[in-house]
Each structure stands twice: as structure tokens, then as C-alpha cells.
């Protein structure tokens, strides 16, 4: 008891020998409480050491192990085998190029992350001697949920617009920009608007909402994007209809 044989169908791709990816079936004796990542580790340790994949914490906080499980973006450390029946299909995270096996090329996301300036840009530089930035609980609550992003990119895999338009800056990057825009200590919203209030910024979003549905940390990136859209729209109309208000 406590064990069950699970069939895993895993997408393999070796850039040195394969012209295209192919599926490989593994039969794994698993413990009841295992997650997909445990099955992959078992495969790598005992059946096929050539299988490549990213993972680290095994507790859904590092964001490394994102992959498609039966066509749905999941953290493999959070995909419990007991929730699946029959053959489990494991593929690399959608909408990213495949480097090798289950490892994707994430350079595009990392670049976009850098572009949105995900760090505090204070309204005025303040030396340490002048003391700390003070923030009330209400001011913290205003942006707290958007700090929970673990950069796992499941939202990019779920977003149909990112799949159609690779230039789209995407849910996580824009949510992170929003996190800093909402932070009372920050004064860099205008700078970030130069990146996210652009065509390939928030305006490629069609509010499908898939990003928020797959987010393992309940960041609700869709909410962040709509709020950015509304703020950007108000900005645009005030800038164009009441230019005298511009500083």
C-alpha cells in the first residue's frame, strides 16, 4: 500500500541529435504522496540520467520547476500525482523555446523583467542618516500581493496573447512594475510607463485572466494589468485634454 505505478509521457529534445522533440514513456513506481517532480527525480536517479529539468526548493517558493502537466502550466513540485489519472503528459513550459528536454530558454522573460525597473526609485534621494522610509500597514497592503511573485513564468505559459505575440512584455513583468508603482516609497511610475504603457506593454493584454488562474502564489497579475490600463488611460486623456496639468 502507499505505492502506485504511474506512466509518465515526457517530452524529450536533444539539440545535438534531434531535429525535433519527441515523447518518451516512463513507468515509475511512486509513493502516494509524491508530486510530478518526485517522479522526475526518480526517473533521473534510477532509469534515465539524461533527462534534464530545472528544480530547486521542492516547496513552491523558488519558481524553478514550472512545466506543462497534461497541458496545464504547473509547478512540478506542486502537482500531486494523486490528482491525475492515466498517463501523465509532461512538457516544457509553453510559449518558451526548448533548450533541452524540459528546460526552456527564459532569456526573454529575464530581459523584460529588467526593462520594467523592478526596484524602488525614490521620489527624492534620501541618505541613510535621514532615517528610514516609513510606511503604514495600509500602504503596505496596497501592493503586498504583487510582491508574492516567484518568477515561475506559469502566467506566460497560460497567456494566449504572449503565445501569439512574443513581444508582449507579459503578466509577471507588468505586475512587478505595478508592485513598485503602488509602493508609497516609490516615485518611478513615469519611468516605468515608458516600458509598460506601450503597445507591447499592457495594451497586448485582452484580460483573458488565465494568468491569475494558474498563478501558484495568488498574485492576480490580471488585476494588476487592468489597473495599469485604467491608470494609463486616465493619464492619456488628462495629458491630451488638460495639458496644463502636466508638471
Amino acid at each position, binding site marked *: 500500500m502507499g505505492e502506485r505505478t504511474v506512466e509518465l509521457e515526457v517530452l524529450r529534445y536533444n539539440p545535438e541529435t534531434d531535429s525535433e522533440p519527441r515523447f518518451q514513456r516512463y513507468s515509475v513506481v511512486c509513493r502516494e504522496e509524491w508530486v510530478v517532480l518526485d517522479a522526475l527525480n526518480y526517473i533521473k536517479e534510477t532509469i534515465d540520467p539524461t533527462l534534464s529539468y530545472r528544480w530547486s526548493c521542492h516547496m513552491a517558493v523558488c519558481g524553478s520547476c514550472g512545466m506543462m502537466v497534461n497541458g496545464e502550466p504547473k509547478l512540478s513540485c506542486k502537482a500531486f500525482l494523486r490528482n491525475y489519472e492515466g498517463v501523465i503528459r509532461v512538457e516544457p513550459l509553453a510559449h518558451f523555446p526548448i533548450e533541452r528536454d524540459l528546460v526552456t530558454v527564459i532569456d526573454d522573460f529575464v530581459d523584460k523583467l529588467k526593462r520594467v525597473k523592478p526596484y524602488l526609485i525614490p521620489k527624492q534621494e534620501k541618505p541613510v542618516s535621514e532615517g528610514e522610509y516609513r510606511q503604514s500597514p495600509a500602504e503596505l497592503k496596497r501592493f503586498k500581493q504583487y510582491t508574492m511573485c516567484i518568477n515561475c513564468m506559469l502566467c506566460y505559459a497560460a497567456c494566449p496573447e504572449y503565445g501569439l505575440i512574443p513581444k508582449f512584455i507579459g503578466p509577471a513583468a507588468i505586475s512587478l512594475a505595478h508592485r513598485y508603482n503602488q509602493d508609497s516609497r516609490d516615485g518611478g511610475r513615469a519611468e516605468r510607463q515608458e516600458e509598460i504603457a506601450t503597445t*507591447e506593454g499592457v495594451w497586448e493584454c485582452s484580460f483573458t485572466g488565465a494568468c491569475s488562474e494558474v498563478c501558484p502564489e495568488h498574485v492576480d497579475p490580471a488585476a494588476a494589468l487592468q489597473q495599469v490600463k485604467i491608470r494609463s488611460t486616465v493619464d492619456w486623456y488628462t495629458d491630451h485634454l488638460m495639458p496644463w496639468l502636466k508638471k
Partner: protein
Amino acid sequence: MAISNKPIVWGPFAAGGTVTAFLTPVLILLTLLAALGHAPDVLAYDRLHAFFGHWLAKLSVVGVVFLSLWSAAHRLRITCYDLGVRADIMVATVVYAGALAATAASVLYLARI
């Protein structure tokens, strides 16, 4: 990267989506009742004609027509892109022009009432 001018089309879309969310179902219900032979009193020629005689009613209807058609047009544009149609500029031109033309037509007809 340049700040996008998308808000020009998105603002009316958001307003239109809200207006249609609140108003369109009940209005469709009114004409559905008419379609089923139980036309509500307001759809009788004399009453409707009198209603549209008022300039405020005309203005409101033009506003509702414009926002409804614009939000439908914008959504159709996005849907075409989602379905793989890449000629976005052409689609956008056709749908927005259609919305504006039909709005202009409604202004024309209301002017004759």
C-alpha cells in the same frame, strides 16, 4: 519605446462594455417580447416617436449606440487577432469605421424624428 495611443480606442471600449453590460440585456428582452408578439407599450409607434422627439432622448441614444458599437468593434478586432488574423490595421480600420458610420446613420435617422 513610445507611450501607446491605445487609450483613444480603449477608453470608449471600457465605457461601452459597461453600458452594454447594464443596458443591452434588458433592451434585447424588450425587442424579444416584440418578436414574440407581446410588444411592450413603449414600442408602439406613437409612444416611441414621442419619446425620441425629446433632444435628451436622442442624445442618450446616440451615446448608447456609439459606445455599444465601438466596444463590439474593439472586441471583434481583438478576437480576429486571437483567431490568427494578422492584418490588425486593416481589421481595426474596418471595424471602427463601421461603428462610426452606423453611429452617424443613427444621428441622421434621429434628426428626422
